[in-house]
């Protein structure tokens, strides 16, 4: 049964706060996370479009869900919603860890922060106690140091924090919000919005876990978790190697983005893959609240990487590794740590450096432009000084790259735009569309820029018919088999749309997409329905959950339309159409014509106008979103 949502509104300009509730019938339509965040973003912004994302008027919204904090793997996630300074679209970023569960434990479903403090502050919550505390002494501190100083200031370490580093303070457009120094609301530049408000941290007091409505029912999902994990090869590998485990298989197929996406074949991959990381620098595995998988890697390299900053995930290994032509694992670990200290998204940061290296190799940037740094592919010694320059927006190359690759290319000119691998201004994550062509559709149409966690990946459509990877997606909709890489057709467009709805729902219910999902994960669509029932007494269905996901996608689309985005922004960069130049899958590619046809098919399936990419009236009415247009 749905309860009301409890929303805390904090105005930093006048240092006031208030609590409001959202009725259960409304909360069920927008049940937490990204869906609730979008609902509240519309409520806060009204019909005023075109606001500067870094102005006091742009709300910064932290949301969890009714399921958050109920002990089961993969439920402690929190979404940050705002207008993104990187993309200019509806902004969306997810984080795991412990803070989400404890935010819910304090009784809040969402915190809406507006305004701007006159001087740095941090927000501290202990149930009904809401304090806006002075944070001048924290400003300029890296995330780990700030976290320690907050504990001293409060006189307790029984807290969890989300903190920005110097990059967020300096409003780097891909700065993030860090939790426990190694988990990030990484994408869309949400750290810059927090910095623009002079808000250094959100701190919550630790609270006991949530109790499920039906503890006996919950046990049917949790009691055999070890057996479930052991029976799932993907989860076994995740527990052993973290996401780093998928680097070698992608590389062996020749689909690891290399040298700023000029190739998919990286000969040095064995020096940076999951096995090497585990055997050489891994200190231990870490986890999130209530999660049995333990996918987080913690590395230690004396003098280079401190365990308190965690370790590089697959994306970071790729962006600071193959993207930059670098096979030096220690330098990747150091780059990961510096990003976590300064509060930079490791995907965008590694990718923007790879773009700069591509420009350097082609003579579009020289050592005069880079403050003397040699930015040839493979020179990982440039990472540390360059990351610092970016975090502090130092004049020259630091300030240029702090804009993200798309804006930097526009500023640089000289054809540098053709080297950018981004959509809606957000750098692409490390999954090649030649290998996983449904992602070409998703990267193009996704409302907050390219994202690898917004639809399932294509290999599920190649799975044997007795395999969970094939059975679970077909619970969402019937799909046709696919038997080769590089296939982009209407079936893939349908796969993109149907699984996007599922991922969108999970970003609303704040479920980790390594634990829950429609393919290889630990828990599938029917398990999510069961979790809703046993966790909070919500009798739902896969159909209702899919509609929740679809509603959130359409809310974002309507938001973006209001901000001036059009079909032309649903585009792919030049390098998407590269025919693999070498490696075991040499020659595999997708074409512009295939991509255009698949994107059109997506619009039809979504109930959007094929010419304008605008949701049709019937779609808006079916999803109950007329209020947005009123």
């Amino acid at each position, binding site marked *: 049964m749905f309860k009301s949502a409890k929303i805390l509104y904090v105005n930093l300009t006048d240092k006031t706060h208030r609590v409001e509730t959202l009725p259960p019938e409304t909360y069920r339509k927008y049940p937490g996370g990204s869906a609730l965040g979008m609902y509240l973003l519309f409520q806060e912004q009204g019909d005023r479009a075109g606001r500067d994302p870094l102005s006091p008027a742009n709300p910064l919204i932290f949301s969890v869900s009714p399921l958050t904090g109920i002990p089961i793997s993969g439920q402690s996630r929190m979404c940050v919603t705002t207008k993104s300074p990187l993309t200019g679209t509806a902004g969306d970023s997810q984080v795991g860890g412990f803070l989400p569960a404890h935010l819910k434990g304090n009784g809040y479903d969402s915190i809406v922060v507006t305004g701007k403090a006159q001087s740095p502050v941090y927000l501290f919550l202990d149930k009904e106690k809401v304090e806006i505390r002075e944070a001048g002494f924290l400003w300029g501190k890296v995330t780990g140091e700030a976290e320690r100083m907050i504990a001293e200031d409060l006189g307790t370490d029984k807290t969890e924090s989300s903190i920005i580093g110097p990059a967020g303070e300096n409003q780097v457009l891909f700065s993030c919000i860090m939790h426990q120094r190694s988990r990030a609301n990484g994408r869309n530049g949400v750290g810059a919005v927090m910095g623009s408000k002079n808000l250094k941290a959100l701190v919550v007091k630790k609270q006991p876990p949530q109790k499920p409505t039906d503890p006996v029912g919950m046990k049917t999902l949790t009691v055999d978790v070890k057996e479930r994990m052991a029976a799932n*090869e993907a989860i076994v590998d995740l527990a052993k190697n973290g996401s780093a485990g998928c680097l070698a298989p992608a590389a*062996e197929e020749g689909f690891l983005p290399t040298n700023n996406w000029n190739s998919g074949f990286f000969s040095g991959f064995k020096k940076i893959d999951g096995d090497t990381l585990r055997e050489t620098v891994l200190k231990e595995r870490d986890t999130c609240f209530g999660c049995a998988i333990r996918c987080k890697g913690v590395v230690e390299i004396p003098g280079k990487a401190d365990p308190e900053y965690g370790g590089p*995930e697959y994306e970071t290994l790729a962006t600071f590794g193959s993207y930059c032509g670098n096979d030096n694992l220690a330098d990747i670990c150091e780059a990961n740590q510096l990003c976590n200290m300064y509060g930079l998204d490791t995907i965008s940061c590694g990718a923007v450096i790879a773009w700069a290296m591509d420009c350097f190799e082609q003579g579009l940037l020289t050592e005069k432009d880079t403050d003397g740094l040699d930015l040839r592919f493979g020179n990982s010694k440039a990472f540390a000084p360059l990351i610092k320059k970016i975090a502090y927006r130092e004049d020259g190359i630091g300030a240029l790259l702090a804009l993200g690759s798309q804006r930097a290319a526009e500023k640089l000119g000289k054809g540098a735009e053709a080297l950018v691998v981004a959509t809606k201004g957000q750098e692409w994550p490390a999954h090649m569309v030649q290998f996983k062509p449904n992602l070409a559709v998703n990267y193009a149409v996704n409302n907050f820029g390219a994202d690898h966690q917004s639809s399932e990946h294509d*290999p599920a459509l*190649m*799975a044997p018919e*007795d395999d969970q990877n094939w059975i679970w997606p077909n619970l969402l909709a019937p799909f046709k088999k696919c*038997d080769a890489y590089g296939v982009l057709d209407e079936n893939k467009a349908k796969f993109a749309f149907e699984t996007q709805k599922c991922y969108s729902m999970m970003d609303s219910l704040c479920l980790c997409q390594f634990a829950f999902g429609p393919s290889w994960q630990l828990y599938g669509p029917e398990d999510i329905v069961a979790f809703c029932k046993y966790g909070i007494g919500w009798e739902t269905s896969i159909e209702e959950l899919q509609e929740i996901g679809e509603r959130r996608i359409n809310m974002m689309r309507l938001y973006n339309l209001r901000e001036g985005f059009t079909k032309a922004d649903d585009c792919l960069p030049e390098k998407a159409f590269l025919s693999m130049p070498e490696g075991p899958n040499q020659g595999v590619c997708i074409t512009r014509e295939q991509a255009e046809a698949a994107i059109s098919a997506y619009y039809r399936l979504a109930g959007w106008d094929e010419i304008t990419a605008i949701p049709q009236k019937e779609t808006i009415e079916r999803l109950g979103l007329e209020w947005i247009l009123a």
Partner: protein
Amino acid sequence: MDPGMKIKVNGGEFMVKKGVSIAQLLEQCGYQGKVSVWVDGNQLLSAEYPSRLIEDGEEIRILRLVAGG
């Protein structure tokens, strides 16, 4: 002595002994994790990998299933 059988794996020629199963071939080729297998264009069920024996001249295609991360 068993002269072995000539088969094709992902387009390349490959020699295997008689009586080798798909599961053994996958191990021999170093595949770890989930894969899909087609024999002469027909996809196998994963339950068939241990029992399906390879026959002379068959064309086998193996694709890795690499998900997100």
